[in-house]
């Protein structure tokens, strides 16, 4: 299995040394390798496969598993809770700032299979962690199912930054095959804690995914930054839920949807201000970019306010790559493809800049590759 990673250009043991990134690799829902575990252990950080966590840290698993996403939550979280075989587990002890990015690579190898991995991250009081998740799947004719559950628990004064680059196989140009990506991601932020979701979604035939934050503690902060791309026959239905429970809670949503080919992109989001959430604020920005005339962009924001002191802002825009922009860039020597790429990554910059540097470069390249054939 490690060989397969090498072929992908993800040589685990080299990568860790070069980038100083700790990596956990999950193949077909089985964790195959975790690096840097020893070094992290010195700080009391636990970064291991779920199987190991169950064996070595049963108390933590028992206490937090299912505490944010209960098995009764929805059909796919229930399925995941019933059958998940492995996944990734992270615990940051009180007061510890994790000195390196933690990364998990997920991969579906077997044809006609599903992946049901589970991720649980606990940031104890006043700790910090930046966690990266990368997903790939090779081309298969038949469809595959990915029904993961990710739970984040940010205790008082802690911060979790969770970044995803999702590049599951999107299906063929005619819409055959591809991964159905039905994922439940949610975090709970306690007093003065912060949870930040950043995602670049370029893969999967169908994506349903709404990384959410329950802003339970006073002064907690939730963020969601997303770029979703739907090319050919892809459907990306993604967004977030920000549930404000505590006082002075604050959330920010920046969602960028790029539609090309016959792709459809939907932002579906919900901002809820509960009765006791005094002085909650939310800023939402939803931008759509259309390439060609057969694609679609949809925005479905739900807003539910039950406290009159709340302040919510919602901005939305829809635009196209204009001929004027293309001509301008091309007149300076950029090819049509380069010009498109520059306009699109520039347009997505507010989100991409939230990614750790190495991931940002990868994300930009991924947007380029995913749009090949969509322009010109």
């Amino acid at each position, binding site marked *: 299995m490690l060989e397969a990673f090498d072929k992908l250009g993800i040589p685990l043991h080299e990568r860790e040394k070069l980038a100083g990134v700790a990596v956990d690799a999950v193949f077909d829902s089985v964790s195959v390798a975790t690096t840097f575990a020893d070094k992290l252990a010195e700080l009391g950080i636990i970064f291991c496969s779920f199987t190991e966590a169950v064996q070595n840290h049963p108390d933590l698993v028992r206490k937090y598993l299912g505490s944010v996403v209960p098995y009764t939550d929805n059909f796919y979280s229930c399925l995941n809770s019933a059958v998940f075989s492995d996944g990734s587990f992270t615990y940051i002890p009180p007061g510890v700032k994790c000195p390196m990015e933690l990364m998990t690579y997920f991969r579906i190898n077997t044809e006609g299979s599903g992946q049901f991995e589970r991720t649980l991250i606990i940031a104890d009081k006043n700790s910090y962690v930046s966690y990266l998740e990368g997903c790939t799947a090779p081309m298969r004719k038949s469809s595959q199912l990915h029904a993961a559950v990710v739970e984040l628990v940010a205790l008082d004064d802690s911060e979790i930054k969770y970044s995803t680059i999702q590049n599951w196989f999107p299906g063929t140009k005619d819409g055959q095959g591809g991964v159905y990506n039905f994922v439940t991601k949610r975090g709970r932020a306690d007093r003065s804690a912060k949870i930040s979701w950043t995602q670049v979604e370029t893969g999967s035939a169908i994506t349903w995914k709404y990384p959410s934050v329950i802003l339970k503690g006073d002064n907690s902060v939730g963020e969601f930054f997303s770029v979703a791309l739907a090319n050919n026959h892809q459907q990306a239905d993604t967004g977030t839920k920000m549930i404000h429970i505590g006082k002075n809670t604050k959330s920010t949503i920046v969602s960028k949807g790029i539609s090309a080919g016959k792709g459809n992109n939907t932002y579906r989001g919900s901002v809820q201000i509960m009765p006791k959430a005094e002085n909650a604020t939310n800023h939402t920005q939803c931008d759509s970019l259309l390439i060609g005339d057969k694609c679609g962009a949809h925005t479905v924001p739900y807003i539910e306010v039950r406290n009159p002191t709340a302040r919510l802002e919602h901005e939305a825009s829809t635009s196209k790559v*204009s*001929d*004027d*922009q293309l*001509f*301008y*860039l*091309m*007149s*300076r*020597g*950029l*090819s*049509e493809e*380069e*010009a498109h790429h*520059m*306009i699109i*990554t*520039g*347009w*997505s*910059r*507010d989100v991409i800049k939230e990614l750790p540097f190495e991931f940002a470069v990868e994300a930009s390249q991924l947007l380029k590759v995913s749009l090949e054939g969509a322009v010109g």
Partner: protein
Amino acid sequence: MLKVKNLHACVAENKSIKILNGLDLYIRKGEVHVIMGPNGGGKSTLANILMGRPSYEITNGEVEFNGKSILDLAPDARSHLGMFLAFQYPVEVPGVRPWQFLKASLDAKAEANREKKISVREFTKIFNQKVEEVGINSNLIKRSLNEGFSGGEKKRNEILQLQIINPLLAIMDETDSGLDIDALRIISDGINSMRSNQRSFLIVTHYQRLLNYVKPDFVHILVGGMIVDSGGPDLALKIENSGYKDYIK
């Protein structure tokens, strides 16, 4: 350097709108040509057509740049040959920083001409130096290309690009419009400092006032899609006094 022979062009989407009707223009190395004319005469169209804007269609004629026919070339290929257009209305490109844009521009040209790419360090040095020379607010230049720039700042940014890209032929499309006197002087200085016996300019303008700062070799009057008169700088002064009425039938 540039030969335009009997050029006819119309709007690509509506061929009944003819804009150029047999235009001839010949620019040698090192010369500065100015094109003046009434609104709707085809000045800006000419500038855009030379650079290859796809919204116009060439129906007849020929354009050669350094002996090579360019009408079948895309704008990027024309740029690689050494042509440059300073835009009348530079577009905003959100999220793209001028530094990144210009580096990509130089890299693309180097690649097309099989030359070595400039290093980040060397480029940054030149970039910073030129930003200061052209007098662009250095905070502005860290933001997105042309986004939130005032009209004058956009024009300065065009001059910055001109200076860094270093073309053989610079086509200036009403670069002087909408500028206050200080900005006009800076733009003119930018053009003058670029003048050399290797580089030519084609300056499209409405006003004679630019010519107080930039001394052209030739002035052409473009009316009804044709050049109806040519001369030296005196011609511009004559137009300033008497307008275009003598040329309009």
